[in-house]
């Protein structure tokens, strides 16, 4: 009987660990943000002055930078991720061709983000520089636009992997009923597949948004790391993740560190909500089928 007890205890440690880990991560972030929360309150989110020397910390430029890069990259990536999932799950479903395609897109997800940063730094920023010259803005290359472009490539596999699964789940008889009424494939996709799979596709897009919000290295390397409020997407900026990466080791004062940890807390909470929401949709989808 003692073996059973030992086993129970051991796996309960595993369970307690999951629970305790997440809880203590949250508490640690919260407690260490307190000095900054107490001092700046709500101004922390709305103020645009970030000055470690005079201990003024307003994170609005970085919050804006995070929102801009995430949403621009999301909008760019959607046609691509939808095309990829239609390509492998509808047009060429279960062919040798689609298997290779899936492997290649998975590979895109497997490339470390610092390598995206390296590639972006040498091969994407020059392209952005040319665009900047055309629009006659300072040709910095590194900019919010460059970061968004890199991000959009990085998040394609996340959205497409969920989307392709739900597209595969669309019942064949629904599609066949449509074809027998004389519908074209485009009409089937528009009127049968998309309505059926839309919540799953949406969940995938949410997951890729969560990924874009927290991405650090690739963004830090091409965004330009400016603490000024960006006036347009051609200017350098910073995201929440990139300002932490840039300043954390150099933070001298306790308040500076606390302000950076509060940014970490904000990032943690935003991604938590988005991931929970996406998970909820995916679970509901599974139950419905």
């Amino acid at each position: 009987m003692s073996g059973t007890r030992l086993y129970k205890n051991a796996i309960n440690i595993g369970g307690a660990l999951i629970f305790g880990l997440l809880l203590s991560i949250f508490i640690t972030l919260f407690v260490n943000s307190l000095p900054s929360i107490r001092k700046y309150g709500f101004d922390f989110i709305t103020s645009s002055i970030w000055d470690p020397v005079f201990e003024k910390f307003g994170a609005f430029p970085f919050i804006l930078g995070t929102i801009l890069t995430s949403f621009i990259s999301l909008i760019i990536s959607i046609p691509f991720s939808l095309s990829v999932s239609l390509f492998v799950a509808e047009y060429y479903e279960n062919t040798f061709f689609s298997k290779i395609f899936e492997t290649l897109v998975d590979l895109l997800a497997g490339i470390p983000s610092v390598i995206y940063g390296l590639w972006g730094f040498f091969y994407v920023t020059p392209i952005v520089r040319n665009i900047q010259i055309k629009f006659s803005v300072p040709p910095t290359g590194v900019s919010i636009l460059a970061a968004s472009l890199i991000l959009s490539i990085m998040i394609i596999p996340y959205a497409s992997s969920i989307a392709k699964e739900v597209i595969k789940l669309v019942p064949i008889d629904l599609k066949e009923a449509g074809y027998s009424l004389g519908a074209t494939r485009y009409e089937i996709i528009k009127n049968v597949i998309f309505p059926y799979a839309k919540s799953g596709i949406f969940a995938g897009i949410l997951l890729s948004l969560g990924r874009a919000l927290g991405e650090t290295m690739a963004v830090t390397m091409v965004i330009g790391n400016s603490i000024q409020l960006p006036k347009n997407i051609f200017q350098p900026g910073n995201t929440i993740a990139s300002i932490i990466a840039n300043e954390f080791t150099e933070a001298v004062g306790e308040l500076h560190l606390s302000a950076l940890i509060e940014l970490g807390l904000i990032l943690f909470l935003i991604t938590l909500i988005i991931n929970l929401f996406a998970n909820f949709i995916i679970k509901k989808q599974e139950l419905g089928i």
Partner: protein
Amino acid sequence: MKIFKDRLFKFFVIFFAFLTLLPLFSIIFMIFKNGISVVNLKFLISLPKPPGETGGGVLNGIIGTLLLVFFASLIAIPLGLLAGIFLYEYRDKKVGEVLTTFVDITQGIPSIVVGIISYLWIVKKMGHFSLISGSFALSLIFLPIIAKSTKETLKMIPIYIIEASLSLGISYPRTILKVVLPSSIGGILSGILLGISRISGETAPLLFTAFGNPFLNFNILKPVSSLPHLIFVYTLSPYDNWRKHAWGCSLILIIFVLMVSSFNKFLLKKWKIKF
């Protein structure tokens, strides 16, 4: 018109789908093109030269990455297995459901936040950067991956296998240990390999934990360099030689990641659970 729309749509799908592969090919091509001229035996076995000087290698980064991943595995694999078995045992109960969501959330924590946590828990207490704080940060990313893959694999073992073992008078824990776990070894190993390929490229959690070190270090209490960290530092450095080394590091790292994941695919095929 109807047919035309259909054709046009198909054209767009194929066009965008192939356009997605363009960056992938560009990245792989550039890594090989720029990296191949840098990587040679000397590059692999020597330490970096001071900034501006030509020559030198990235041995510190290679050893650092191996050590970081090794110690991260040492922490994450046993605990992740326990957590995974817990999730499996309680899969139909409320607590199992809630904790599975907890694991999902933990997996979604941005890697830079994981770095902050390891900094606050270990670096701040010790007073300096260290290999072990880097490994701990990586293990926080590793653990949920193992827990989830273990649960999913165990779920695939049919209940009659367990019942057959129990009916022979073998105790439940022994059944799990000697019957269920061995038959799911393929899936569990695949989770481990997936985690290794994921954490070996992580940089953000190492910025303020393992930090970086131009010398060789095997001491877990001292800072250590890593390939991804070297790529980051070298890319943004003003020295031409270092920038070339960034490509060399990328080539080594990408070959390592590709090897681990193709080995994983091979294992998955070979040890697929089937009853």
